């Protein structure tokens, strides 16, 4: 018992780790929020492709989603982190960023990390969006179209507003997952919270810094998780009303 306390809850080490992990907290936040925001248009595009009438649109989206969801993110990070720089397009975007540092990390590292996380998350969001859109009764689209609204306008003003309300809790759960998964960027030396705490642990031969990092993750995930439950309950109530 004594040793567990000493190894994981050494107050001296925790005090020492706190400012360092805290400094890495915004880095994890940038990757979490940024990756998620970028994934939303990506997921929406994939969802519409998967629902398209033409096989030429459906097929690539299906393959993409299957591959991304069928392989570990840890592996995707290793492949893309070193693979992206071989893409000409990537270099066009990255070139002007190479001189800029944010929170002590080069902007191209953010670019790569954000791209990888959003490419991953967009596959999951795709399925969330698609299920959400398809859960809206057919009559809604028919009523919109019968009023003369075009397909895009029917989507924008009738289907998507109802979809967002329904899938918001699921989307937030997906965000929580993505935020925790930013830790996997440690494997390619991105100095986010998990790597920061690991470096401290290695230096002082004590694991207490990990507990500090865990607390920082929980700082965001517990309130958000509560919010998700609250929204799910409210949604269930309002859907009950409508029925």
């Amino acid at each position, binding site marked *: 018992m004594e040793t567990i306390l000493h190894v994981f809850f050494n107050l001296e080490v925790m005090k020492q780790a706190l400012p360092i992990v805290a400094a890495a907290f915004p880095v994890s936040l940038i990757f979490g929020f940024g990756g998620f925001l970028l994934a939303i248009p990506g997921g929406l595009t994939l969802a519409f492709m998967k629902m398209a009438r033409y096989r030429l649109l459906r097929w690539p989206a299906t393959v993409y989603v299957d591959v991304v969801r069928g392989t570990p993110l840890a592996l995707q990070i290793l492949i893309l982190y070193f693979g992206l720089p071989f893409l000409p397009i990537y270099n066009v975007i990255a070139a002007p960023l190479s001189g800029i540092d944010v929170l002590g990390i080069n902007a191209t590292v953010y670019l790569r990390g954000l791209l990888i996380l959003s490419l991953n998350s967009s596959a999951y969001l795709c399925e969330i969006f698609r299920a959400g859109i398809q859960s809206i009764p057919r*009559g809604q689209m*028919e009523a919109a179209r019968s*009023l*003369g609204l075009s397909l895009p306008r029917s989507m924008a003003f009738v289907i998507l507003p109802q979809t967002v309300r329904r899938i918001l809790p699921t989307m937030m759960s997906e965000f929580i997952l993505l935020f925790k998964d930013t830790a996997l960027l440690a494997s390619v030396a991105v100095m986010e919270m998990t790597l920061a705490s690991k470096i401290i642990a290695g230096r002082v031969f004590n694991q207490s810094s990990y507990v500090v990092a865990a607390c920082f993750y929980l700082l965001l995930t517990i309130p958000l998780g509560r919010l998700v439950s609250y929204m799910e309950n409210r949604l269930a109530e309002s859907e009950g009303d409508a029925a």
Partner: protein
Amino acid sequence: MSTRNTTSYAEFAQPVVRIKGLKKAFGDNVVLRDVNLEVDRGEVVCILGPSGSGKSTILRCINLLETPTSGEVWFEDTQVNAKGTDINKMREHIGMVFQQFNLFPHLTARGNVELALRQVQKKSKDEAKDIACEMLERVGLADRSEYYPSQLSGGQQQRVAIARALALAPHVMLFDEATSALDPELVRDVLDVMRNLAEGGMTMIVVTHEMSFAREAADRVIFMDEGVIVEEGTPTQIFDNPQHERTKDFLGHLA
């Protein structure tokens, strides 16, 4: 298309809806076979028939919610099911009321009526609001304009749906069993609105099981069975002197 503020003789002479040799199949299931129908301006046509006889499918072919397998559907001087027809423009002038109301649950009654005024007819905010309030008043729901559909009774929801279609000043209104999903005590308010419309000269195609409505309001009654028009005539002809066995059977079952 011609402007609508001058009514030429040609427009009077021309049917609003003209269906020629309409056939519709879902896979192997032939739902409509050779349907022919013309509806004149101001005419109220009621379509009767057993469930599954293809009544809804006819209405849905008129505004192209279903694509006809063959045949022609004309709205005024435009063929609806021809390549290159601007179907959104067409639908603006063809009002449709559904059995399940299909109100937009995230919008208030007024929001429901305003949506197409704003997004299709590009009316200003104020203009759309004025029209929406006028339409809601016309269906007796002026005091419910800020309510959401879930806060309204079925009958009120259906009247909002009628107001929503009327707001676009349609040239014809299609009603698909508008009262079938309503509790009996709520049916009357909706039928009253429909009766007023008919008396006001609206061109209407009404699929209904409300025989008293058909008898009073219809200029012509059509009886359908198994995808064909079996018999048509004035309400008196159809109700009091049906010619075909199937019509007699159907009306007999209802009596």
